[in-house]
């Protein structure tokens, strides 16, 4: 783990320096307005947690950062320069790697091919350059083992893995290729307790290696364990934007649940 992140991390990163800045960013699908007036900074060496209800616009927000959808309003700056990514390839070129909620894997392709998809290791840079197949297999295998996932055969199609195992491949890939910014959309949703732990360690390690991390989760415990900065979205707008110093776990939980419903729930279920 240490190796990977240290190796791949851009060595010019300085903790606290802004990597991505959003100013009044908004986004509409057709005429459904999913996001509006978002201001957000992703700083090097910090974890920014984005929280919020279902349909609040979290995924939309990170899709803008990762170049999957262009934004309609406001400005997006990366390393101080204004950009509007026309493809995820460009974002990757800036060292921004993403784990998407609706997994970006190709079911029929082998696990290792999925791992390196779009960032293949080749003997040269021209498109028909030979792939370093053996090396790629080994790296994919090693990175998955680090997460506690041992696939029976690294050549099996990724479609035959369990939901959580597939998620782990996506995470391991993003960690491996994220040189400056790592964006994770509900990475731990499908994961077991053990694997979730590993992911949280990754997030911490990435932060420590100086990367900027955007972390989306519905689990306030997970968020509070690693986050430096918390943003809560509600119906496409910012509802809370605080630093770790300004907010406690309980407050965060309450805010996420939109009131003190959770406590009420425990009470109502009458079991605790």
């Amino acid at each position, binding site marked *: *783990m240490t190796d990977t992140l240290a190796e791949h991390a851009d060595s010019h990163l300085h903790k606290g320096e802004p990597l991505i800045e959003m100013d009044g960013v908004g986004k509409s699908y057709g005429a459904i307005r999913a996001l509006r007036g978002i201001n957000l900074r992703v700083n090097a060496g910090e974890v920014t947690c984005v929280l919020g209800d279902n349909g609040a616009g979290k995924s939309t927000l990170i899709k803008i950062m990762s170049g999957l959808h262009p934004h309609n309003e406001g400005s997006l700056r990366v390393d101080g320069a204004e950009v509007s990514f026309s493809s995820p390839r460009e974002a990757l070129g800036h060292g921004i790697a993403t784990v998407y909620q609706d997994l970006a894997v190709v079911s029929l*392709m082998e696990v290792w091919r999925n791992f390196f998809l779009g960032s293949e290791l080749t003997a040269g840079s021209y498109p028909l350059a030979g792939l370093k197949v053996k090396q790629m297999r080994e790296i994919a295998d*090693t990175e998955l083992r680090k997460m506690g996932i041992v696939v029976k055969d690294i050549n099996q199609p990724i479609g035959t893995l369990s939901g959580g195992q597939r998620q782990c491949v996506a995470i391991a890939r993003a960690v491996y290729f994220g040189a400056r910014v790592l964006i994770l959309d509900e990475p731990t949703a499908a994961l077991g307790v053990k694997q979730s732990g590993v992911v949280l360690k990754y997030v911490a390690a990435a932060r420590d290696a100086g990367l900027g991390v955007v972390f989306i989760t519905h689990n306030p415990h997970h968020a509070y364990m690693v986050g430096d900065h918390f943003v809560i979205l509600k119906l496409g707008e910012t509802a809370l934007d605080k630093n770790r110093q300004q907010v406690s776990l309980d407050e965060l939980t309450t805010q996420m649940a939109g009131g003190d419903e959770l406590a009420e729930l425990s009470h109502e279920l009458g079991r605790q």
Partner: protein
Amino acid sequence: MTQTTVEAPAPPAGRVRLGLSNRLLARPEIGALVAAIIIFIFFLILAPSFRSAESFFTVLYQSSVIGIVAVGVGLLMIGGEFDLSAGVIVYTAGLANSMFCWYFGVNLWVGAFISLALCLLIGFLNGYLVMRTGIPSFLITLGTFFVLQGANLGVTKLVTGTVSSTDVSQIAGYDSLGKVFSSSFKVGSVTIWTSVIWWFLFVALATWALQRTRVGNWIFAVGGNADSARAVGVPVMRTKIGLFMTVSFLGWFVGMHQLYRFNTLQAGGGVGNEFIYIIAAVVGGTLLTGGYGNAIGVAIGAFIFGMTSLGIIYAGWDPNWFKAFLGVMLLLAVLVNLYVKRMSTMRRAGS
């Protein structure tokens, strides 16, 4: 900088090493190969005149003419798209070359390059329109198919006044182009056409590109799941347009072969061949929905088609039932392919 570490767990048992026979069985083209061998033996038994080296090479020749374009079509289908204009573009290429040179009286090499440029442009347009409009390639290339079919006929009639191109054998450059595209040599009593060798070359190149290059990885990805591929940074548009252009390049190549072997071309030719290419690809194990397949399989598919359609004639079966035999043989080939593939995944998983 590193405070936290994650350790890799000890390698557990259960990691699989496959034996040679299983590794062989696991190759995706094995099903098509078994089907081809069964049909081959079948015809060896039933058709006496099939049992000669000459016949075998005639079958190979016929397969190569199908197979060269089919390789491109197969790649394109792995990449998730169809090209229905692949059949007529062969004739467009040949007609363009021959009529241009005849009309303007220039060297055939000039015409060949102009024709190549034209074909690449058509391929590019196919791909560009598919990607830009989001209309399925089936429809876009159906449009191109109709347009090319009409243009082949219309232009030929306009230029030559008949429905076939003029004889090119007297125009400068004929001999050298013939050497490149349609020469043959004798080994004993057997005639071997260079198109067969070209076919093997293209198959080898495509196999290598698919398995061992970055572009190959992209082709599988754009066919398997274009959205996911885009999301992880695969240049989907470039890859797909490239595939369409590959098909039209190979169509051009076969068009050159046809022209320099037969000297004249019928303006209405090539119609229907687009499906033969698709059949070859699918019989060879390419998934119609994209994302799976391989070039050797497509080559075997072309061979199965060529062998079956000529084998029925070698066997001297009632020509009225020709299509029925063909249909049954193709279904059998696909079934055998499927069966072998099932067997192999069982064994692979089981080992």
